[in-house]
């Protein structure tokens, strides 16, 4: 394993209360240099508050922040080192795009010619080489967003903070800009924190994701870890489509869902509790080639077929299980099986794809 470089940004036991409302409780995490970390969670989970604390726009009630080896806990925003892009972009409407981008440079006694060259370079970098003389209102939402990024990185800050940068854009632009921002971030190698409530955005852009709920961190991990190995039922439920069903422990490798028995891999949660929750992804449910000999097989009835493009989602009823189950299958499988509502179908849930939680954790 290569030696890990020292962490660029470290948060230790950060907490924030607004009056009696606790917005953040004991948040600790570290960000490596050049990494893109996403704060992901539903609205009100504290992710934006955490970003604003890092920016010095809010003050933590307790805890400590260290950036590049320097304790920044109590530094005013102007003494910190970051560029920020807000959801609204906050472009200055009466200044041209070039003046917006140059806004932070003017103050640093950069020679005019050098400044002009830097602005041109930045605008080229974000793919708007000709936008300089225009005003923000003359640009599309996506273009304004890129200008805001150019302005934020103009002074070469050590850290870039993005607060829901894509949520004001329509779906197609959003998908395109995801890739562009990620590409730019990797080319510049700038350490970046991105706040979002959109799990797809987090999964596709982040090196690591910090999943937050009710002011606390639920899990920190790579997108794959978060998706495959959710640490809590909340993460399992929030990221991706999920089957999350109540279950009971029978023995170390057997659980009971409704009246159905399933074999599963031994899990720490199973030793600790009798009341459990079982989690598996719709795409992990086997729908083709399942016969009576397939382990963990059950007979079900198709309730609904939802066409989602490349994939389709089946809603299934299984006798003995009160909840509906979801299973995904490809278009090819769907046409091969010719399924419709009311059809009988045998499915199986591979033991190694099931994840077990103690029910009290929910």
């Amino acid at each position, binding site marked *: 394993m290569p030696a890990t470089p020292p962490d660029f940004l470290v948060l*230790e*036991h*950060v*907490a924030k209360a607004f009056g009696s409302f*606790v917005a953040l*409780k*004991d948040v600790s995490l570290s960000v490596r240099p050049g990494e893109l970390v996403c704060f992901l969670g539903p609205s009100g989970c504290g992710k934006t508050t955490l970003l604003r604390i890092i*920016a*010095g*726009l809010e*003050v*933590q*009630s*307790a*805890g*400590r922040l260290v950036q590049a080896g320097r*304790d920044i*806990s*109590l*530094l*005013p*925003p*102007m*003494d*910190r080192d*970051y*560029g*920020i892009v*807000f959801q*609204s972009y*906050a472009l*200055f*409407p*009466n*200044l041209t795009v070039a003046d917006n981008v140059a*806004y*932070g440079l*003017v*103050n*640093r006694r950069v020679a005019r010619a050098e400044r002009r060259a830097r602005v041109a370079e930045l605008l080229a970098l974000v793919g708007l080489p000709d936008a300089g003389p225009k*005003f*923000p*209102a*003359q640009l599309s939402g996506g273009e304004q967003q890129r200008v805001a990024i150019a*302005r*934020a990185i*103009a*002074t070469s*800050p050590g850290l870039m*903070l993005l607060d829901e940068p894509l949520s004001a854009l329509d779906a197609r632009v959003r998908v395109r800009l995801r890739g562009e921002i990620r590409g730019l971030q990797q080319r510049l190698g700038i350490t970046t924190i991105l706040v979002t409530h959109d799990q797809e955005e987090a999964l596709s852009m982040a090196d690591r994701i910090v999943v937050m709920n009710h002011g606390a961190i639920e899990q920190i991990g790579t997108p794959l870890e978060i998706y495959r190995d959710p640490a809590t039922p909340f993460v399992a439920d929030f990221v991706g489509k999920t089957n999350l069903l109540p279950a009971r422990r029978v023995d170390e490798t057997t659980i009971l869902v409704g009246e159905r028995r399933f074999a599963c891999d031994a899990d720490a949660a199973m030793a600790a509790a009798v009341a459990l929750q079982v989690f598996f992804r719709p795409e992990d449910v086997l729908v083709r080639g399942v016969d009576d000999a397939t382990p963990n097989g059950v007979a079900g009835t198709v309730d609904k077929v939802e066409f989602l493009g490349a994939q389709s989602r089946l809603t299934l009823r299984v006798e003995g299980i009160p909840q509906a189950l979801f299973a995904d299958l490809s278009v090819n499988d769907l046409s091969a099986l010719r399924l419709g509502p009311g059809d009988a179908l045998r499915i199986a849930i591979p033991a190694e794809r099931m994840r077990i939680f103690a029910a009290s954790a929910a």
Partner: protein
Amino acid sequence: MTDTVPSSLAPGSPQLFGRVYLPRLRLHGSDRVAHALLVAAGLALAVFLLAPLAMILVKSAQDRAGEFAGLANFVAYFRTPALARSIWNSAWVSALVTALTIPLAFTFAYALTRSCMGYKALLRNVALVPILAPSLLAAISFIFWFGNQGLLKPLLGEGQIYGAPGIVISLVFATFPHALMILVTALSLTDARLYEAADALGTGRARRFWTITLPGAKYGLISAAMVVFTYSLSDFGIPKVIGGGFNMLATDIFKLVIGQQDFAKGAVVAIILLAPVGVTWLVDGWVQRRQSALLSARSVPYVPRRSKGFDRAMAAYCWLMAALMLAVLGMAVYASFVRLWPYDFTLSLGHYRMGLVEAGIFPSYLNSVTMALWCASLGTVFVFVTAYVLEKTRGLDAWRPFVRLAAVLPMGVPGMVLGLGYIFFFVENSNPLHALYGSMAILVVCTTVHYYTTSHLTALTALKQLDNEFEAVSASLRVAFWRTFAKVTVPVCLPAILEISRYLFVNAMTTVSAVMFLYSPDTVVASVAIVNLDEAGDIGAAAAMATLIVATSALVCALYHVLQVWLDRRTQAWRRS
């Protein structure tokens, strides 16, 4: 670093040495500048608003020797039947004016917003003309129409214009535009979708009016009624000029303080005057909060449809009202040129030349212009900078609510009361600011404070439309707030800043009440000169001075308008969205 929160400090138990430990960011130099500005603004409002008002309370509880007298002054006041009657007079006159003005203004506003009559902009501007004049002008004009030597005196028969009738009709004229502006706003806030729904359900015109229009304008009506009532209660110029022997609270203050030097009783009247005005002010604040929730971003503006009979009726009404307005204004202008009313109706500049210039009264007009220019420049700067640091900078959280409250308080303080407080406070030799007494500066300060709230709210509205994160972005780029203020905030808010400046200029030109107590022989202003000329019986010269004020206000408004149009044109590139 010693002032960092110890990381061992467990969240949830932020107790250190027995008290709650809340970390604060260290202050950047620019934060200190912002805090200094905010403290200075708050102190200025404390000294020039709160301290004078407090002095009124103090004086009301002191006897002539300055000893504490408890409620003795109040008891003495209510035992004087002539004085106590003024309360009743003020109350019923104000109520009557409100009852007359609101329906008149509502109909006019309804015509402007809900009919398809022509010349709406012209009619609206004519209806707003009274704002350009001191309230005295209406009284002077009605004297020329209906006074002892008035043109239409015979119409009154045995009746008299002097006293309550003249006061009421003059106040209706003076308050009409104030009510109109509020009601036009209230009526244009209505959501067209409500009317579409009503049409779809086959609702008749009358039922639509009672079930949609009136409830929708409810808060506007309450607010307008409050404004009219308060204005009538606290106006000084009109009862002074046309009141005759009819006493009201505002004129009582003046007589008690200037005529009888009875400061204690003056203070008592001031407090009586503050009470109802304070109530209406609270109600108005409540109404404003309700009103803002009425219109959602998704509302569809109402567009009136043609309806011949209705449009004609509305047009007829509006032209009639406009004609009456112009008749009032025109009479004062006309009379100012008449050589010797009512004997010689030939036109001349006599009142201007002899009555004003040669009588040495003309400098008061120049004083007014000087004062208005100071208010429009320095006053505007103070208002806008204060609103900016209040709204857009951070820290000093305990101090901000105080400044906010002080900024909206002046709306509830009648000019006479403010002026009286200024005398009490600044006349004391022990006050280090005593030197201001009798100076032009105190007139400028008092007038700016008197009209502070509306200016402040205009500034706030404009600032709230700016993205809240401009300052945060600037800080992240290490640009101090004053640079962003100069490069972004001021250019973007320029229309609002001009509006504040225009508002302060016009009000400084026309105000009578507060400055009535504060002028010295060197700083007589035009509106005060009108009162003095009228008292001396030189009503022709008074009309001439009033005409000068109206002409100046109108000219300045026109200049501001030109400036505004020019700015719009220059900045349209970035305003186009």
